[in-house]
């Protein structure tokens, strides 16, 4: 009986289940068998093919060499705990003529700094002497989304809010009192605001591209007019614009890039000229040196976006440079 049963079950096994089991074995063991052969000494490395860090899911860094394309802010932030000393300088326009050494006699300077508060938030500030306006500016730049190598996040998106204040005091002649006195200018007329998004992508190791839709409002004080005006009737002009900036960089070598920075104003343009700049980034260790040609004199957002008056086609081109030097203030391990 037992023998018969065994034969029967074996028969059943081979006929009914056999082919299925065979397939099962085939599927289950063919793969490891292949790997067994691959276990030959030189390919032990293959066992490590599954990396612990998936290179596909990393954040994309270094879309630009520094936090500025030329004038406009770039997709980059200063790293958390790092202070970036910034100095910008613009000569006068080429068309200032031989009398002013084609602009070399004129110099506007901004000295400032940027500090990485957290990996996605940066604070910046500066003081500039543009047009004797004693301009102080302050801004916050926040990264909402950072591009990843696997394109799960195909873009980087940042926001910038900037405020600046002109601290110049103007003396005007008061005919009623018969003497000069300080012109009283309300804060609103001294203040400029900028709010913008920075949306862009490191397209390849060489090419990065960004678009900067934004809004700017600022006032122009005209003291010459004000002094003639009746008391309380201050000659200020407030203008608001929408704009769409474009920034681009193309690597020339590992440490040098060609940059383009164009900020066309979309609304309420009036006599304002669009800011257009071409420049080079040269990186050496902790420094980034930016050399540029631009038609803007302003060194903070509201000025170069909304108050550019020179034209490229009239040789209203200024030579300028930005200098960036980073200092690690807080050990990066704190933020890991």
């Amino acid at each position, binding site marked *: 009986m037992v023998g018969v049963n065994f034969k029967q079950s074996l028969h059943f096994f081979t006929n009914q289940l056999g082919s299925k089991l065979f397939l099962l074995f085939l599927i289950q063991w063919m793969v490891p068998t292949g790997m067994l052969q691959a276990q030959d*000494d030189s390919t*032990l490395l293959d066992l490590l093919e599954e*990396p612990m860090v998936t*290179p596909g899911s990393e954040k994309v860094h*270094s879309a630009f060499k520094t936090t500025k394309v030329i004038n406009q802010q770039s997709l980059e932030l200063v790293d958390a*705990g790092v202070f970036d000393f910034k100095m910008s300088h613009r000569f006068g326009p080429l068309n200032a003529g031989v009398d002013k050494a084609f602009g070399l006699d004129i110099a506007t300077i901004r000295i400032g700094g940027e500090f990485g508060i957290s990996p996605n938030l940066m604070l910046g500030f500066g003081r500039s002497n543009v047009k004797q306006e004693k301009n102080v500016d302050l801004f916050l730049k926040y990264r909402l989304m950072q591009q990843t190598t696997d394109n799960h996040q195909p873009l980087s998106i940042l926001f910038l809010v900037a405020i600046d204040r002109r601290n110049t005091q103007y003396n005007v002649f008061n005919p009623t009192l018969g003497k000069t006195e300080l012109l009283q200018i309300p804060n609103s007329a001294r203040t400029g605001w900028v709010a913008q998004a920075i949306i862009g992508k490191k397209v390849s190791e060489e090419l990065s591209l960004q678009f900067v839709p934004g809004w700017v409002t600022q006032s122009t004080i005209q003291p010459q007019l004000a002094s003639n005006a009746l008391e309380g009737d201050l000659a200020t002009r407030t203008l608001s614009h929408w704009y769409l900036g474009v920034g681009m960089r193309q690597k020339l070598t590992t440490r040098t890039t060609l940059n383009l920075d164009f900020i066309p104003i979309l609304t309420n343009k009036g006599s304002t000229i669009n800011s257009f700049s071409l420049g080079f980034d040269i990186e050496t*260790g902790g420094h980034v040196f930016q050399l540029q040609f631009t038609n803007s004199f302003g060194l903070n957002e509201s000025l170069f976006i909304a108050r550019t008056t020179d034209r490229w086609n009239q040789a209203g081109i200024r030579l300028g440079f930005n200098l960036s030097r980073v200092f690690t203030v807080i050990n*990066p391990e704190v933020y890991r």
Partner: protein
Amino acid sequence: MKKIIITGFLLAAAVGSAYAQVYKTGTGNIKFISKTAIEEFSANNDQVTAAFSPKTNAIAFRVPVNAFQFKSALMQKHFQENYMQTAEFPFSTYSGKIEDVAAAQSASANFTKNGTYEVVTKGTHEMHGVKKEITIPGKIIVADGVITLTASMSVLCSDYGINIPAASKKSVSDNIDISINCPLQLSKGK
């Protein structure tokens, strides 16, 4: 049909035992130091994968280059972008074999007994897209089922096509000292 089934089981057993011989880690450590007269800096990587087969004396390392952590975030970015071009070459690898286990220690073959074994491995090192045959002396420390691979070596950046610009030559050394410390554990299954 019976034969096939039996062969299948035998294969399964063979595969199982072959894999049981491999020691692995995904959290090995590699450090490097660059020293010049005016500047010294180092970086640390805790995400090194390594494998060792005591049966075949084969050794392998796979190093995600982006995982090197520096004390300066900018230095780290420059290392990735300007020196190692990690977007193009994300991993450094080494695949080698132990050349000679010192004679006295060869008695306790296959690294089953606790102890420190001085070894020399010979193999192929690939870094920054350049392959080189190199020999690395190191130690294999066996302690209660954990096999630790340690070694100190130095490499020349110029050997691997890693360009140090003239302006940085005073602060970045061509000769980089590397130390490896990877405790491996028996890898179960795949």
